[in-house]
């Protein structure tokens, strides 16, 4: 058994254990134990990875395991990680761990809730360890489908509508993706003899340019739907607003990262020429995502909607940076994914906790919460500051790297767009500070709010885990950026070799 497959096996075993449980009260304990173990495994993986790199292992992917699955189509179950996937796996295990504690008090169908949640996590972990496009796609769909039940059963508001919209749009994305992947597969070998789904092997050949032009947009948009690419982002606000807390955390924190990661690892890495040629279209779309998302967040009155639009904006930034195709910007994109994953999970977690107390998410109906629930409020401020890019927290590191990298692009168009994008920081500050001012400061408007209890122990675990990580990245970013940058190097080299610009 290799260490990477354990990341799929542990969730599956946890699910099996939950299924066998008779007593529903133990379900959350088992889930927390399983996902805690997963978090521990992620730490072990980081350690093993770093020590392997220190020992001088310069392979593109480490811990590679390859099992032939469908011989006639050359489909493998192949796993392997580089610094980028290790970072994403760590992010996932953190968010899932926090998510379990944030949903400690699920009322109905506990067993089913945790099973669906962990099934979703299984898909995400499997996606990040795969280096075979087939298994990657399989895990991708596996991660999307539990969302339907999670939102539909345990959600709030127009949950059935939102769940259906989200599922169909994401599956629509994966439909485009499937065609793109098949196109890559059938062009993965110049003489058509040894077709392969293996990313590393495909990266050794150059897919013919006409095929790239056809399949790059399909693949990029396919992943882009999940990464909230304008105009395919509309599932995100509705979905996030209706989803239960832990699901919003996991979805905005992790699942949306599948889009960014896939766009980068599959679409751009394997088809860099078309990516360079067509990047202007997607740069425009992602810029709209960033700016429109930020303005959208200003106009919203519901806390979850604000955060959902802010996610659209931040994830748009990821896709934007990835399209710049240089070392700094792409490293920034990965850091942004991690940073946004942590802080948006934190946000959604906190919103869920506030909502659990005040029973409203409308900012106009709340006020002065700082006096009543100081712990949660302070955490909310920290999350907000991270989101608007305050130095010392992770958001700053990520955005700074992205903007520096994006401005390095030699062409004027890209620099102008970068300048426009930078303005989103200001807009972000507006909606974050506005919420903090209305929600937390000022007099307590509603007397019912005066005796709200502050965070319970399980909520504290959830929140502190995330805040700790956000601060750690902000204070010591070089650990992360070196790990990512080293792995980014061979990718950039390949892109530049094909696109001398």
């Amino acid at each position, binding site marked *: 058994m290799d260490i990477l497959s354990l990341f799929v096996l542990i969730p599956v075993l946890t699910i099996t254990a939950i299924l066998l449980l008779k007593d529903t009260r133990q379900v959350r304990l088992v889930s927390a134990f399983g996902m805690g173990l997963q978090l521990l495994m992620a730490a072990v993986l980081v350690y093993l990875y770093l020590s392997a790199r220190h020992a001088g292992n310069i392979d593109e992917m480490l811990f590679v395991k390859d099992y032939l*699955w*469908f*011989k*006639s*189509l050359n*489909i493998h179950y192949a796993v392997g990680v580089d610094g980028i996937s290790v970072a994403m796996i760590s992010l996932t295990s953190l968010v899932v761990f926090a998510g379990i504690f944030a949903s400690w008090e699920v009322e109905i169908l506990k067993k089913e809730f945790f099973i669906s949640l962990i099934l979703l996590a299984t898909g995400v972990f499997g996606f990040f360890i795969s280096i075979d496009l*087939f298994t990657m796609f*399989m*895990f991708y*769909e*596996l991660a999307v*489908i539990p969302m*339907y*039940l999670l939102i*539909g*059963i345990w959600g709030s508001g127009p*949950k*059935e509508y939102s769940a*259906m919209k989200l*599922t*169909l749009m994401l*599956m*629509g994305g994966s*439909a*485009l993706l*499937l*065609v793109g992947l*098949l*196109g890559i*597969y*059938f062009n993965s070998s110049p003489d058509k003899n040894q077709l392969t789904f293996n990313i590393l092997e495909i990266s050794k050949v150059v897919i013919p340019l006409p095929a790239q032009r*056809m399949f790059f947009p*399909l693949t990029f948009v396919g992943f882009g739907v999940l990464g909230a690419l304008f105009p395919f982002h509309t599932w995100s606000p509705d979905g996030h607003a209706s989803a239960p807390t832990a699901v919003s955390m996991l979805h905005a924190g992790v699942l949306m990262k599948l889009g960014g990661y896939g766009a980068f690892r599959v679409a751009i890495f394997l088809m860099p020429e078309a990516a360079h040629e067509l990047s202007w279209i997607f740069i425009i779309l992602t810029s709209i995502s960033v700016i429109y998302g930020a303005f959208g967040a200003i106009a919203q009155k519901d806390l979850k909607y604000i955060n959902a639009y802010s996610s659209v904006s931040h994830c748009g930034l990821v896709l934007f940076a990835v399209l710049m195709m240089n070392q700094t910007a792409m490293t920034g994109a990965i850091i942004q994914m991690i940073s946004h994953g942590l802080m948006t999970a934190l946000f959604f977690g906190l919103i869920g906790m506030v909502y659990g107390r005040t029973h409203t998410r409308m900012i106009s109906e709340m006020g002065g919460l700082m006096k009543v629930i100081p712990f949660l409020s302070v955490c909310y401020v920290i999350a907000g500051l991270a989101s608007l890019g305050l130095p010392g927290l992770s958001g700053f590191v990520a955005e700074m790297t992205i903007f520096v990298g994006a401005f390095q692009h030699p062409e004027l168009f890209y620099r102008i767009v970068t300048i426009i994008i930078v303005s989103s920081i200001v807009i972000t500050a507006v909606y974050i500070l506005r919420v903090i001012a209305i929600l937390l400061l000022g007099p307590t408007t509603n007397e019912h709010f005066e005796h709200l209890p502050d965070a319970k122990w399980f909520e504290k675990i959830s929140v502190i885990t995330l805040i700790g990580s956000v601060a750690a990245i902000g204070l010591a970013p070089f650990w992360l950026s070196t790990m990512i940058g080293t792995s980014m190097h061979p990718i950039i080299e390949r892109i530049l070799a094909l696109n001398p610009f």
Partner: protein
Amino acid sequence: MSLGTFLIMRHELLLIAAALIVLIAEIFWNPDKKSSISLFSIILFGVITIIGFLPSPAGPLFGGMYVSSGTRLLMKNILNIGALIVFIQSVTWLKKEENSEKISEYFLLLISTLVGMNFMISAGHFLIFYIGIELATIPIAALAAYDRYKNKSAEAGIKLILTSALSSGVMLYGLSMIYGTTGTMYFSEVASLFGNTSLQILGFIFFFAGMAFKISIVPFHLWTADVYEGSPVNITSYLSVISKGAAIFILMIILFKVFPIIMGTWQKTIFVTSVLTMTIGNLFAIRQQNLKRFLAFSSISQAGYILLGLIGGNQLGMASVMYYILVYIFSNLGAFGVVTAISNATGKENIDDYNGLYQTNPKLSLIMTLALFSLAGIPPVAGFFGKFFLFTAAAQQGFYLLVLIAVLNTIISLFYYLLVVKAMFISKNENPIGSFRSDFSTRFAFGICVAGIVVTGFASVIFEAIKNLSFGV
């Protein structure tokens, strides 16, 4: 007739023997224990199914009118598995008071359709093919009218017999043109004498239209929903899985073996009909309230996806079609099994009736979900692999546009499959279907279906074995 001849025709001969044994056995059966005939028939058929997998000689018989090969044996075995599941699922229903007088007829008729299908698949001559297809259709019409005191059931029987008569007429007309231009009815000779003249193309189109009736490809699908709704559920599931599967198998063989010369023509035909079938099947399924009609339209759209495997005329395509039919048997019979179980217990067949089913019957809901996800092609169940291979087969020949249309269609289909999931898991209901426990046979059939849905995908040996037996144009 030597022993070798018997062995080559093993499937057909055994089935005929079984049909006769069931018929004779009924005469001597203790009238008080009539319902145990079904157990006897199932065991008999189960043995035949197992014998079918034993190695067997292959080759032509009767001067090439009958051909047996590894591929065709595999197709027959796939059909046998499906029929066995249908048989097991019918036990509960056959136990009912009104059916107790005609149990052996049920098995006799179903087994004779299976004989017809086997002959059809093994045909090396259009005459045998035609006899097979008629033998496969007419008893089904009798079965569709099995509940003959119900108006809808009688109507279904009449509709089925009339449409299949029409489709046979259309097909025979096409075959006569093919005969007129080539002077032969042997598959191998037609293949070598076939040209590209307009009369021959016309003959082919008529032949294809006739087959399209059997597979219920749009625009020849109009009989499907009514017949499916009116027939007893078990007959519906048999029609939607086994009959359809057999017709697709023989269409595939004939396209690949007899008409390779006009491949360009039939690729265009299939392209158009496939797009129409998927889209119209899916769009109509959205509006259905009755689950049998719902599954009827879903099975129409499934036929559209299956055509994607045919269009390339490649080995991978044939393998993926056979594989998909196997997966489809498990998934569709799983879904129909749930409908049957609930219809037997409560008589309810509407989607609204399923509201809140998860509260009272969690296991049935989970099986239904699994089956529907498999039909929709959601991983990690077998339907995902089946669809993926079908799409790969079409993409291999460059039909990317068709694949794109097909995958977008799977999204539409996901929508209405999720509507059922929503009804079972999310929708509230004041008085949901009461909790009940199915009897052993139903649960046994579910066991087979669920195992099939889960295992067929992951176990790559199954696909590889099928692939090794397939061939391209």
